[in-house]
């Protein structure tokens, strides 16, 4: 393998610096005792204290996490069942049609998803708020779960199921003892992705959240529109570290699984 020359290294360093600079900039000023992102006065944790003392923010944080966990759970169940069903569709045309329908929400711009869901909820009379946000998040996460689980199911040879059936396993046994354990990594990956999609979503939530219910993204948007507030910086500091821990532990776990599979 050829070594990277100096110019290439410089370029890569530059890209990484640009990618991380804004995040570090935010975190840096979250410790500023002044009240703006311009001159750093002295080190303080008061903005972090503000976050934890602001009951409204805490409620919003809990909302965000509850919506993320619940919607990820719902979408994982429906998506996994759906994938198992899709695999069983023998008609190729029908299967391809289902798969294309599956991908529509993934490629659709958030604005369209949000606007169309807003119409939908208004027509069927779902009150905007927790329910509509939860349903929307579950809805846009289902296709992602399917995309994570489906490849695992395709990897599985059907003789595995036949063998289980021949050995007298009931349908339920086949599902719980053969299929599910085999596709477990896919299910976990799907759940994790659904979780992060939900935590990250702004545009769809912005459309379907009524007055009175808010998630972190929507709240940050209204705070940012009002102007610079170092509370937002403190939030981003927290979000950054939580994300870092999540991503690295996820990577560590999947890596270990991969290594384990090779043994």
């Amino acid at each position, binding site marked *: *393998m*050829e070594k990277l020359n100096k110019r290439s290294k410089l*370029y*890569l360093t530059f*890209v990484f610096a*640009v*990618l991380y600079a*804004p*995040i570090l*900039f*935010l975190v840096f*000023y979250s410790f500023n005792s002044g009240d703006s*992102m*311009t001159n750093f006065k002295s080190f303080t944790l008061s903005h972090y204290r503000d976050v934890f003392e602001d009951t409204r923010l805490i409620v919003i944080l809990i909302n965000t996490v509850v919506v993320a966990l619940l919607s990820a759970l719902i979408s994982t169940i*429906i998506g996994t*069942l*759906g994938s*198992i*069903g*899709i695999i*069983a*569709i023998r008609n190729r045309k029908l299967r391809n049609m289902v798969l294309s*329908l599956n*991908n*529509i*929400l*993934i*490629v*659709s*711009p*958030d*604005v*369209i998803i949000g*606007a169309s*869901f807003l*119409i*939908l909820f208004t*027509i069927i009379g779902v009150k905007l708020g927790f329910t509509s946000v939860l*349903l929307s998040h579950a*809805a846009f996460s*289902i296709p992602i779960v399917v*995309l994570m689980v489906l490849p695992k199911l395709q990897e599985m040879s059907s003789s595995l199921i036949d063998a289980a*059936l021949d050995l007298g396993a009931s*349908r339920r046994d086949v*599902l719980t003892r053969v299929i599910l354990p085999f596709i477990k990594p896919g299910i976990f990956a799907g759940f994790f*992705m659904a979780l992060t999609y939900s*935590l*990250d979503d702004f545009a769809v939530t*912005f459309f379907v959240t009524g007055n009175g219910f808010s998630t972190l*993204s929507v709240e*940050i*948007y209204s705070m*940012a*529109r009002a102007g*610079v507030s170092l509370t937002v910086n403190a939030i*981003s500091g927290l979000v*950054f570290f939580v*994300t870092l821990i*999540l*991503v690295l532990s996820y990577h560590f776990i999947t890596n270990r699984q991969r290594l384990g599979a090779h043994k």
Partner: protein
Amino acid sequence: MEKKTMRRKGNLFSLIPYYIWIFCFVIAPILLVFYYSLLDLHGHFTFENYRNFFTSVYLKMTLSSFWYAFLITLFSLLVSYPAAYLITKTKHKQLWLILIIIPSWINLLLKTYAFIGIFGNKGPINAFVKAIGLPNQQILFTDFAFVFVSVYIFIPFMILPIFNSLDKLNPALIDASRDLGASKLTTLRRVIIPLTMNGIKAGVQAVFIPSLSLFMITRLIAGNRVITLGTSIEEQFLTTQNWGMGSTIAVFLIIFMFIIMLITGEKRKGAARNGKAK
């Protein structure tokens, strides 16, 4: 045989909630958007929204939306391709890739908010500008700021698919091209780029479509100077409360989206799996 049909029936039952989802959250919303695009403010059936869309105001907005999306995609590609290429050459390439991906997991709003501080009148950029003796620059609320922040947001989504296709590229092909006397540039132009076209297309798809529909970056960074299709839909739905017109713009956005996907599509499932670009 009996066993097989039994198994299939059981599996097909598991599709019921999934089919309900497809009907309620994929098919119904699209039909509703089409239906609403044919209604005026009072709920009467009309084609007026479509007539309105073809007036100069909306056509101009559509054109400028495409122009910005084009710029954003172009700059993302120009930054990302060499970066992806260099990452495939590093020793711990998976680790570097994760480091590229991590920023894309940080909430979009927070990253955008950061630029309010960085581009601000007293921000570090302006401090630098002043230090080299130039007058204070207005950076926030300009087209430049909008394109820059958007490119910043989309870079990971461009790097990922390109990295994947570069990584799959057989290095023997590059050696062969060199051995046959091709210069570095020729190898890049005639071998590497054509063979990684799928990655480029996937990346373009993952950046261009969301660029057309951005609305919160325009509000926070461009200060309402830039209006994209997305901004306009949001405004019609949530501010003006003219759902009919909003739906009409959404219909056109859906049509554009399909055209772009046809152009950049590959036979096998592509962009959707490569990242969480939205």
